């Protein structure tokens, strides 16, 4: 539901990371953890809506969805959390630390050689 502000954040970070003000960006890669509840399709939709008015015009948003992984604090087993349970499948403990799943990160930009000039 909060994809609009997340997308604005992605664009702000990406624009701030441009190697040259006139760099042309072909894609922006982001990691989105599954626990964040951010919907990748909505993010792409907002990116298409917001990016044309920015130096990222023409770029595509590449979304890598990161699975939820847990680490059991009691028996030290690492495991995927793909059901809705955060309990350890090995020992049943509920004291589980998250290894991944909360990512909301701009990973990289892909720029083309071509440099836009003038208008």
């Amino acid at each position: 539901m909060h994809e609009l502000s997340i997308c604005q954040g992605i664009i702000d970070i990406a624009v701030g990371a441009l190697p040259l003000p006139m760099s042309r960006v072909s894609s922006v890669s982001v990691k989105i953890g599954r626990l964040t509840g951010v919907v990748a399709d909505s993010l792409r939709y907002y990116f298409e809506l917001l990016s044309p008015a920015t130096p990222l015009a023409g770029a595509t948003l590449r979304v890598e969805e990161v699975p939820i992984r847990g680490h059991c604090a009691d028996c030290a087993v690492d495991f995927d959390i793909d059901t809705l349970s955060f309990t350890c499948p090995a020992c049943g403990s509920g004291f589980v630390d998250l290894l991944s799943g909360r990512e909301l990160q701009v990973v990289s930009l892909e720029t083309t050689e071509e440099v836009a000039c003038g208008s």
Partner: protein
Amino acid sequence: MEVSVLRNVLDANDLIAADNRKAFDAHGCFVINLMSAPGSGKTTILERTLHHLNGRVRAGVIEGDVLGTLDADRLAPLGAPVVQINTDPHFGGECHLDARMIRNALDQLKLEGLEIVFIENVGNLVCPAEFRVGEDRKVMVLSVAEGDDKPLKYPLMFRVSNLLLLNKVDLEGHVEFDSARFRANVARVNPGLPVIELSARTGQGIDAWLAWLEAEAAVAKGGRHVG
């Protein structure tokens, strides 16, 4: 050419949240971020709470809603300063409060002399879980009418919260809610989450909530002095 960025989208928010935190610390304010779905009873709980604190503990409220001042109007007579934030003056505003909105609200809420500040977030079990605002504790409310399966549907909210207020327990028996199943579901996502059962309508359990607030405020204050 690939340009490595590796920056978290919420860093900008978290920086402002840290600034808010400093402002709260400077005035010794203990800050609660109160979150729930719409209609769980956040405002009624606050009404009860402010009523009990009135004359004993100086409290302030930042009230977040997409639209309108209905909640702020309800709280205004209770002796605590209330600042209303509308996430968007037009329809379709943000579904959560973020650190920047709280920073803006701090222009209007005079922190001096306030011992506790309640931030009532926008009613939503998803997005508010993601945004720090500079709070000491995150407290979530769930009402029994919402069902015992909610921990499994909104795990992040249950994971990030420091306390769960289970509200409207006076409705138990009238709605589909199995208390044992609920406790088991909470344990599946966050076994360390304390639960206080209350009814903001009847006042049941309010004492336990006030005692929790007092104890946690003391812990937070101790931490600040050490830090």
